[in-house]
């Protein structure tokens, strides 16, 4: 019995052991589907860019059927994620196995290896002040990944074995620094602030600054005094000018108000002046005649 050819085909496959052609029919279905949607697949299949997905990995369908990654993310089972957001542990630089600073992108990545379950904890701090923590499962990370968090995790994993911290060196460094500081304090208490040679004398930085401030202060005082002097001289000159001007103005006003009286007084004054000049002329003439006679 044959119903639409299904029964006979599957039976034939069972006997010959050949693979089912279901996938191909599936491909055709997807092609025709996408053809109807945007008509892209024909050209893509010609170029051989995208082969139809032969496995069940849903991510490989992203390119082939032009499905948005967001949509895939929602379909994808949780176990497939390589990077999982987790609670922030607030690890310091000293606690982390690798630190990467990216000022251009405004991020700091800190990573810490967890060797027990081969995961790497990556902490991302942004310039906005937000901190996020991620757990990266290394077994699932591809080496050529473009994800910065995955890259950081890989880098940290490779680095972790190399680093070894020597505590002895650090301790000796502290002791040296402490000894230096104690000596410094002792010296400071005994001799005061450190001094240096300036010309014939020794001065500390504070004394030097004080000296310079004094000199500057003196210079400023001299400048101010000079400026005040110049001001005073100018003011006195201006006062003289204003006195002359005011005298003239008063005289003119007086002339205008009591024109006749002043005019008379003026003529009287001029008469006096004329008589004075006449007297002086006669005196001069007499002195000249006397000197001629002496000759």
């Amino acid at each position: 019995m044959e119903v639409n050819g299904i029964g006979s085909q599957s039976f034939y496959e069972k006997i010959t052991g050949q693979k089912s052609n279901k996938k191909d029919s599936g491909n055709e279905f997807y092609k025709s589907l996408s053809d109807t949607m945007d008509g892209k697949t024909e050209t893509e299949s010609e170029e051989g860019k995208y082969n139809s997905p032969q496995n069940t990995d849903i991510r490989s369908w992203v390119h082939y059927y032009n499905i948005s990654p967001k949509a895939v993310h929602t379909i994808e089972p949780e176990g497939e994620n390589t990077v999982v957001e987790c609670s922030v542990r607030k690890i310091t630089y000293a606690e982390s196995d690798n630190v990467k600073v990216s000022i251009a992108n405004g991020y700091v990545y800190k990573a810490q290896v967890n060797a027990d379950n081969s995961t790497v904890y990556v902490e991302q701090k942004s310039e906005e002040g937000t901190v996020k923590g991620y757990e990266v499962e290394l077994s699932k990370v591809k080496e050529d990944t473009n994800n910065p968090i995955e890259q950081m995790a890989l880098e940290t994993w490779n680095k972790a074995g190399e680093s070894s911290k020597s505590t002895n060196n650090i301790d000796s460094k502290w002791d040296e620094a402490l000894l230096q500081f104690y000596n410094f304090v002792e010296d400071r208490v005994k001799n005061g602030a450190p001094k240096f040679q300036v010309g014939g004398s020794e001065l500390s930085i504070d004394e030097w600054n004080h000296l310079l401030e004094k000199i500057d202060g003196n210079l400023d005082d001299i400048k101010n005094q000079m400026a005040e002097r110049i001001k005073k001289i100018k003011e006195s000159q201006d006062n003289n000018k204003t006195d002359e001007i005011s005298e003239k103005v008063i005289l003119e006003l007086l002339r205008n108000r009591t024109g006749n009286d002043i005019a008379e007084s003026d003529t009287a004054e001029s008469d006096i002046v004329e008589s004075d000049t006449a007297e002086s002329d006669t005196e001069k003439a007499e002195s000249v005649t006397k000197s001629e006679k002496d000759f």
Partner: protein
Amino acid sequence: MKTEQLERYFKEYYDLVYRVAFAQIKSHADTEDMLQEVFVRLLRYQPEFESNEHEKAWMIRTTVNLCKDLIKSKWHSTTVNIDTVPEEEKAYFKVPFIEEDDTLWAVLELPEKYKNCLYLFYYEDHSIREIAQSLGMPENTVKTNLRCGKKELKNIIKKVR
């Protein structure tokens, strides 16, 4: 203050104070003097700290303020150029846990307000709140300084290249 306590402060903050001071002064000798000065202040005033955060903030703030005083002083301003880190001084400045690159030196060339925020955030792993506390400025100002500093840094790096 007991000797043990002073030693604890010394061990905990010696490197941090050195790096913060060097970022400002850019000279090993001056930085060492500054370091001594900060610990002398600690001995002299013996402040009571409420928490580790407060302790750290006091150290950074005192260092930054003392460095500012030194930079402003007549002696320093007339004798030392502090725009760039001299090549011979670079060997003295090492940030732990982070690989050294040109970006670090470019950060140290930034104007003070950007430099301190960027340096503490990226190289000393301080949070925005801690920076605000240490430098005595609002958190939003720190965020703005981080953004603007990043732009300025890009310009400096472009010029160098």
